């Protein structure tokens, strides 16, 4: 039996609620779907119990009424466990920074680009959007549309030709 298959069986044995929710895509690729309330314990067991001590990144998904989060965990030997959970938009998820201090930048990215709310994230600057970007605009949401360049706060100098037409009222010229 392959190592990947062993991890699947271990997970399904320890967490009965995961029965049928662990998929072996191919050698070294596991996909796990867990409900939001079960996700922290599965996550902790993967990290502490099964040695998935490397969080490669967190992918955020816009799934309509919900946001999806995939935690890409890897361990020595090359197996990657991708733990997916969903959370209704507007509700918050728990930070994983107690286990992975380096994950703060990935969680800030989820906040900026998808409007996720992450509880327990240590204070720090936003990432990756500019400081003057509106806090309620999250460009990776499917219904987010780029503003027309004619609007003064479009944010970039892409419409360079029309930039110096008139001085903006409060020195708000985009000078990027």
């Amino acid at each position: 039996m392959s190592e990947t298959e062993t991890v699947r069986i271990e997970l399904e044995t320890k967490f009965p609620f995961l029965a049928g929710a662990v998929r072996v895509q191919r050698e070294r690729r596991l996909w796990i779907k867990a409900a939001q309330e079960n996700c922290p314990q599965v996550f902790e067991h993967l990290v502490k119990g099964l040695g998935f001590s490397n969080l490669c990144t967190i992918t955020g998904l816009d799934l309509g009424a919900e946001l999806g989060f995939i935690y890409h965990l890897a361990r020595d030997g090359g197996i990657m466990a991708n733990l997916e959970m969903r959370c209704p938009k507007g509700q918050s998820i728990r930070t994983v920074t107690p286990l992975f201090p380096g994950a703060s930048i990935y969680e800030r990215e989820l906040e900026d680009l998808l409007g996720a709310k992450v509880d327990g994230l240590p204070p720090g600057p936003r990432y990756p959007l500019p400081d003057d970007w509106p806090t309620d605009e999250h460009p990776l949401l499917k219904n987010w549309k780029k503003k027309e360049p004619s609007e003064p706060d479009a944010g970039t100098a892409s419409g360079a030709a029309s930039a110096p037409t008139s001085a903006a009222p409060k020195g708000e010229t985009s000078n990027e």
Partner: protein
Amino acid sequence: MSEVEHIVQIPVGPQHPMLKEPESFMIDLRGEKIDAVRMRFGYNHRGIEKGCEQRTYTQDLYLVERVCGICSYSHSTAFVQAVEEIAGLEIPPRARYIRTLVAELERIHSHLLWLGVAGHEIGFDTLLMYTWRDREQVMILLAELTGNRVNYGLNTLGGVRRDITAEQMPSILKVVNALEERTKYYIEVAQTEETLRQRLAGVGKLSKEDAARLGAVGPTARASGVDRDTRRDDPYAAYADVSFKVITDQHCDVFGRTLVRVGELMESYSIIRQLLKKIPEGPILVKAPRKIPEGEAVSRYEAPRGEDVHYVRGNGTDKPERVKVRAPTLANTQAVAKMLEDGYLADLPIVIAAIDPCFSCTDRMIGIKNPGKGERRTMSWEEVSRYGVDFYKRKGIDPSRINLRGGSAA
């Protein structure tokens, strides 16, 4: 009398002469030592992930290649591998070998570039001149093999777009042999040159535990004793068919990061020789569908700077539902703050440079617009080269005697 705390705040960036791309470091300085570092990134955010959702898979290939100027092939391959996995495409063996070959050539040019930058940051500009002159050989070779120095446009869904001809094999070997000799010399320099060792040893310390805990990747992690390399751990392309050592080091500092990179150069030469010996005959491409089925895949790729991770979700159309990119520098920035803590301000440039943060070297013009008439004409590589030589000649510098090909320049 209580001691007065004197902490001076120094902003470094977003625009600064030390790094060629925008990042911001706010340094709390106590005397000459760094007390704390606050970092701000994102100045280069271009919305490529969103851009990918709005374009077809084929267009995305060229877009993700522009995530980075140096590891352009890393991003292109990481992306195409994920899409091929979703589509269930098995690419021909010859294409796997060509992808691996270009990947290793890219690592060589990237590591030589880094060695020069590191030399420059510590005031050893001779090393910069030497390594960048050597690097030119691999850049010219990449241009010959793929048509461009960076952003090769080589990958396509189902394989690669250009074959390696039998006539090209000897010129690849010639460059590999010449660079191997040079790299042996750099290893000797790194191991015996006392000023280099004294300048780099003990600078930018990162313990093995911190490297693992903070998610460091690539040479940065391996120089702290973390034995991790995606090429061996989760093999892709043709890496399962070649043998190579994963170079690790226990110095846990900038000196160790230097040794790891020069060691990896030697492994890359060996990998390329094995590839050229074993490369199978056959097609380089299988037909790929325009629409990619529903599904998802994660692709991991050992870029020169560390693991590059791409996640792709398909929705049955010709455009992806989601593309997520985690470039290696983002993973390593977390470790930089740790490395800088309690170090000297004067070490900041080399410590940051030692993770090899990515900047673009794509400023190469071929299409030239005549400003007077709006005409366009195209210059060949030889013309561009001659133009550069003449430009410097007019300024009183004659570089034409430098022999880039032979490696035995005056």
